[in-house]
């Protein structure tokens, strides 16, 4: 039977009130090993009705393993899970869903050729006479669901025509359409802009008020402090601590996640009169961005801030030569850069860390060594043959330099954590000895410890007289690392502000 949104909320809400003091979900002593290597030693979580519970931890803390066990995707070696006091042991995600536990993962899985409504009710379409899909009913139900959540997505649109943010909202709506009691959200905001985050949080508040419990996983601490009621920290596969979020501050949380205090990276002093490294002269590309002129001096980190769809990613990709500009020129060290040719850009001294490391940054099935060497193979080759010794030495050096944690340089990149994967991308870029590093969302989906390492690295790189061009949708991040910030709005460069003298509020005001 199709559970239509708004059709039967009362019955469940009453049940919820009756059991208010009993926790919704209690997991204790969960342990799991893979081939004898423990991934999770002692996972604990207690979720109460009507709360948002933040599950925090660095990469490799065991969060994913824990959540997969709760969802029935993995089998636990030890421990117990109870839902409203009843022990459960789910065999599959469908099983978990039947018991009112739904998950929204980072990995989106839309069917691109189907409409929004068809995607939401995939596999449980309302039918006429049990045979024919009742499209009008399905569309009404989907519209009702999206309206209730205040998600601005047309139900009749094809998924392929939606933006990444809209796809994410549809996935969220789909999970919520099951009217699950427990909703697990794994990095739900990694692909959406601030506007959508705001809409999502409003929706979460309504779901909370309905009596559901939400498990919220995010590396964005600002969000956790905004939406969460309670928190739990995992580190190295163990439960560390838990409590109401109002009783702690950001520093305390970071310290618990990382295990020691983190020093935030200091910005260098402005270097007046440094030579100009990158000069962009009135660059335009179709409808994406128009007439952008901006410079990066040697030793400078220039941040680019803008909302999703402001043309910031397209701008970076055009500077790097992935797309050819419709107008304008780019100069590096005074020399004109060949438009539309990443290979030439690399040879001239550029390197790019792209936005989506899985989609654009890495050959996931390839080894760490092969990925690191990919951009510089031609530089190291003798008449087409790879110089294997030089390559092995260079990868070794890069792995040590970037602190990439892996059993060997020959394991596939897909087996690494997000933070380590991103370090592999950085290593690949550095091996070509770039003068200008272009980074699009360099810390997306990675933990606080690795983030600070990346900030420190960027700072150090710039201090050697190189330049960095960095896009980030996180205002605190861009404020922390940038010397100057270029604010993009609807494909235009509106303002360039000083990173030291700008507040977060100012930045978000300028961008919207």
């Amino acid at each position, binding site marked *: 039977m199709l559970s239509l949104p708004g059709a039967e909320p009362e019955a469940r809400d009453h049940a919820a009130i009756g059991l208010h003091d009993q926790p919704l979900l209690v997991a204790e002593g969960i342990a799991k090993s893979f081939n004898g290597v423990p991934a999770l030693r002692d996972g604990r979580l207690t979720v109460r009705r009507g709360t948002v519970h933040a599950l925090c931890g660095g990469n490799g803390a065991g969060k994913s393993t824990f959540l997969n066990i709760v969802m029935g995707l993995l089998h636990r070696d030890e421990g117990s899970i109870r839902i409203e006091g009843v022990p459960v042991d789910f065999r599959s995600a469908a099983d978990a869903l039947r018991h009112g536990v739904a998950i929204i993962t980072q990995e989106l899985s839309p069917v691109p050729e189907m409409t929004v409504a068809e995607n939401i009710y995939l596999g449980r379409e309302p039918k006429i006479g049990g045979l024919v899909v009742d499209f009008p009913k399905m569309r009404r139900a989907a519209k009702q669901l999206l309206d209730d959540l205040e998600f601005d997505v047309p139900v009749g649109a094809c998924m392929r025509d939606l933006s990444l943010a809209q796809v994410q909202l549809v996935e969220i709506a789909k999970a919520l359409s099951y009217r699950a009691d427990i909703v697990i959200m794994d990095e739900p905001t990694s692909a959406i802009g601030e506007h959508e985050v705001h809409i999502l949080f409003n929706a979460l508040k309504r779901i909370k008020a309905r009596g559901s419990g939400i498990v919220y996983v995010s590396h964005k601490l600002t969000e956790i402090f905004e939406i969460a009621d309670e928190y739990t920290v995992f580190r190295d596969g163990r439960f560390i601590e838990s409590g109401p979020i109002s009783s702690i501050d950001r520093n305390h949380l970071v310290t618990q996640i990382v295990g020691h205090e983190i020093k935030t990276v200091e910005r260098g002093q402005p270097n007046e009169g440094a030579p100009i490294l990158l000069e962009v002269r009135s660059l335009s590309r179709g409808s994406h961005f128009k007439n952008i002129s901006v410079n990066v001096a040697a030793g400078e980190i220039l941040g680019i801030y803008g909302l999703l769809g402001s043309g910031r990613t397209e701008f970076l990709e055009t500077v*790097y030569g*992935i797309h050819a500009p419709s107008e304008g020129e780019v100069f590096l060290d005074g020399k004109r850069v060949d438009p539309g040719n*990443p*290979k030439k*850009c*690399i*040879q001239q001294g550029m390197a*790019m860390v*792209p936005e989506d490391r899985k*989609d*654009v*940054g*890495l*050959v*996931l*099935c*390839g080894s760490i*060594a*092969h990925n690191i*060497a*990919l*951009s510089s*193979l*031609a530089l190291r*080759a003798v008449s*087409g*043959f*790879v110089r*294997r*010794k030089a390559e*092995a*030495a260079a990868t*070794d050096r890069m792995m040590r330099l970037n602190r990439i944690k892996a059993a*060997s*340089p*020959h394991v596939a990149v897909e087996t690494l954590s997000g933070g380590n994967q991103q370090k592999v991308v950085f290593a*690949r870029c550095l091996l*070509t000895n770039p003068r200008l590093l272009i980074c699009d969302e360099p810390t997306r989906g990675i933990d606080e410890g690795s983030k600070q390492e990346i900030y420190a690295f960027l700072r150090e790189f710039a201090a050697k007289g190189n330049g960095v061009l960095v896009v980030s949708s996180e205002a605190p991040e861009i404020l922390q690392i940038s010397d100057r910030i270029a604010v993009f709005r609807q494909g235009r460069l509106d303002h360039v502000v000083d990173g030291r003298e700008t507040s977060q509020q100012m930045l978000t005001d300028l961008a919207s």
Partner: protein
Amino acid sequence: MVANTMSNVTSDVRSRKIAAVGPYLKSFSIVIVFVVISAFFAVANEYFMTWLNWVNLLRQSSINGILAIGVTFVILTKGIDLSVGSVMALAGMIAASLVTSTNQHLVLWAILAGAGTGAALGLVNGVIVTSFNVPPFVATLGMLSMARGMTLIFSDGRPVPNLSESFRWIGGGSVAGVPMPVLILFLVFAVGWIVLSYTTFGRYVYAVGGNEKAAKTSGISTRTVVASTYVISGLLAGLAGLVLTSRTTAALPQAGIGYELDAIAAVVIGGTSLAGGRGSLVGTLFGALIIGTINNGMDLMGVSSYYQQLLKGAIIIVAVMLDQFRK
């Protein structure tokens, strides 16, 4: 300084050992399949394990092996080449026409013409795929029909017989007891293996198949790499056409029909992923040997060719199922 160099050398040796073991383990399961199938036929038929039969088996597998090595390059980039059977027919036909008793050119010209025809048609495939964004399946399906049509037009539907003795040596001769087709197969395998394992081009083939966008962002000319794999596939199809024509001592307009399917089967049995980026030529070589062994073994047992087809198809599916199961 010396100590530093030493430690570098040892860590290098260690990492290379690990590098060598990885693919070795992967291709291990296909070797087991090969051994099991051979053992079965050895028990079923006493003649199977003789030296003479193995020479024969290798010779029978050589044309499929050469084709499959070329197709492996294409499949590694996430592509497919359905045209190799027709391309080999055209290449063989053109080469044969230069070495008949009425048209007596140097064998070298015939070889160059055959191989050149294959490479040229491969280049056409490559350009259609990379510059016009036609899916590889469609582009090479079209070429499958076009090359066959060209063969029929060129030959007017008639075979070209009476080939010169020196040309017939390519497929019929032998060196130190090893038939020429087998020598050619091993030579092609060795060169292909070196290209894939030791050259930048080889790395780029794997990278483009694994993630084309990442390869492009890393500064690789992805179009050139992909187009080159079709040229390699076409070139090897041309070479296989020379061997086939020479062995049958006449160029037949209907030669090589369906050969592309056996070549793709050999690649897939050998563990190369149709999704691109994973696979090896060692696997492909054993894949071709497995298909050859099945054909040869069943011939010896007197299995009717109708049943042979049925069993061969089933064995291909089971071999790949086992491989999936192992993963």
